[in-house]
């Protein structure tokens, strides 16, 4: 009999079925595995179906975007930000654009601000749809995935009409946006939202409150509040642990002023309740487990729909233009800025160190998925093999962003 970590072999008062030990098995999960969401590799040390240790290995998608940033001007770097979190290119564009604007001391016109909120929140919906759909796939349910991708496809169609790209947009740029909306776009967007809202309830039926789904996710991979903060987890992972923290409300003033006259609720569980409308929390769910992490995203989708609707109204009323992009080789003032924005996956931070030239001296991308993933060994200790995809899926990582 081997020694189980954390259990005294002499202590016979603790007797559980997990005490029966077999020979340990090292299993390589990934980089080609259906549910590691890209090229993540996790080495599992297992005892039968029990995972004793999970060690993530990353870097398969490393392109050293930070080094590239030292060779190109800020506007030229925008396409590289698209390729970090490729499911939320708009949010990445915005994070980078705002960081450069913070360095330049630039503020975009009102119309551009509302358009940015509109586009970014729409992309947040798209990203969360992928998260929810693939999470269903991780748990063996194929159909919600197709439903989610159907809705996401409609958002991508809207984005295509706006900027011509479906995945790597490079639409939000330093100083504004690349183009104004085409005529009739807002009506299409509203039509989409009207059609989309009932679909959220379908997804709740198929996933959130589905009995098997709850059984698979409730109480699995519980991430305590303290641990989440300790590991620097952010976004839905942090809020899933019950921490009321959303950069759109609590962040840098330079970022929060974008949302200053918007009305939304932070998707977090307060006294066992989530912002309405949402189904009640099942009794099995423990704060910080996979179910809560998943559910926070579903609730955020509702809030994002609210934000998009407000942004449409505000954009319609706004006067003026959508801002002028800075010159491609505009000189940057010397200085250092760091800015984090609330991206769908968490807080994505960009940092620029400038020595007064057009090309930054150093670019830093603090990736939210990177920090969220680092908690994986902690969560996977002592779970079952089948829980590993459930936990990885609930962290909702994008390897493009982890590896940069």
């Amino acid at each position, binding site marked *: 009999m081997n020694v189980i970590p954390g259990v005294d072999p002499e202590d016979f008062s603790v007797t559980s079925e997990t005490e029966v030990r077999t020979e340990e098995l090292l299993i390589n999960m990934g980089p080609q595995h259906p549910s590691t969401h890209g090229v993540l590799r996790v080495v599992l040390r297992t005892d039968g179906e029990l995972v004793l240790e999970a060690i993530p290995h*990353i*870097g398969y998608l*490393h392109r*050293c975007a*930070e*080094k590239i940033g030292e060779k190109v001007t800020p506007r030229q770097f925008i396409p590289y930000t698209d390729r970090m979190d490729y499911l939320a290119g708009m949010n990445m564009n915005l994070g980078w654009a705002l960081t450069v604007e*913070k*360095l330049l001391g630039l503020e975009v016109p009102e119309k551009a601000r509302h358009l940015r909120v509109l586009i970014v929140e729409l992309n947040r919906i798209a990203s969360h749809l992928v998260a929810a759909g693939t999470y269903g796939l991780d748990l063996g349910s194929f159909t919600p995935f197709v439903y989610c991708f159907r809705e996401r496809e409609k958002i991508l169609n809207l984005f295509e009409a706006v900027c011509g790209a479906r995945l790597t947009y490079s639409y939000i740029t330093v100083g504004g946006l690349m183009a104004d909306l085409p005529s009739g776009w807002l009506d299409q967007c509203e039509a989409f939202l009207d059609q989309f809202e009932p679909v959220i309830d379908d997804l709740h039926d198929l996933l959130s409150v589905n009995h098997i789904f709850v059984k698979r996710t409730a109480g699995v991979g519980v991430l305590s509040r303290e*641990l989440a*903060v*300790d*590991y*620097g987890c952010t976004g839905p992972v942090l809020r899933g642990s019950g*921490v009321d*923290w959303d950069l759109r409300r*609590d962040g*840098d003033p330079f970022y929060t002023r974008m949302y200053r006259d918007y009305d939304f609720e932070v998707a977090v569980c307060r006294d066992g309740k989530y912002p309405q409308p949402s189904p009640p929390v099942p009794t099995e769910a423990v704060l910080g487990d996979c179910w809560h992490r998943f559910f926070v995203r579903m609730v955020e989708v509702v809030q994002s729909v609210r934000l998009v609707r407000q942004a449409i109204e505000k954009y319609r009323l706004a006067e003026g233009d959508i801002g002028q992009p800075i010159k491609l080789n505009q000189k940057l003032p010397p*200085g*250092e*800025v*760091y800015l*984090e924005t609330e991206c769908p996956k968490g*807080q994505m*931070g960009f*940092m620029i*160190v400038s*020595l007064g030239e057009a090309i930054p*001296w*150093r670019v*830093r991308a*603090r990736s939210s998925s*990177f*920090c969220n993933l*680092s*908690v994986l060994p*902690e969560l996977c200790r002592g779970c079952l093999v089948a829980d590993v995809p459930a936990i990885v899926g609930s962290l909702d990582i994008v390897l493009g962003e982890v*590896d*940069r």
Partner: protein
Amino acid sequence: MSIEEIFQHLQEKFGEAVRPGDFTSIDPWIEVGPEAIADVCRFLRDNPALRFEMLHCITAVDYLEVDEKKAAKASFVPHLELIYHLSSLTLRHRVTLKVMLPRWRDDHPGQLPRVPTVSNVWKTALWHEREVYDLSGVEFVGHPDLRRILCPEDWVGHPLRKDYQMPIEYHGIRAR
């Protein structure tokens, strides 16, 4: 809490080890001596008036002008900077710490500069320090598992150093 107040707290406790950085820049910062960084961080986290529970990011910036013509006019002496971004979720304030390091320990090229780890203060640092070690070449003393994280384990050099040369070939793959 403003940066001046935070600095007051730190100076009372650590004296010479902390120096005022730039309080007027966009993101004001405090300079911390390399040997004191772990203690300062622990103090910042545990002090009830400060409570910096979250480490956002560790960044290393390499200051070296490789072009010899420009190097003569450069506004800095060659060095490495570590930048720590911290914030408190409960008290809602932020601070930036900087640690100045030589580019090489004792100016021997190839000897990585050393700094105490903060991974026992915040677990975020576990991976961030590995990343800094991997890409910028800083050795974190006391880190439990200081391996390369983004580059392959047998990679040579630290890509984010300014004098880094991309290898011509890596395992038979043309790299340059």
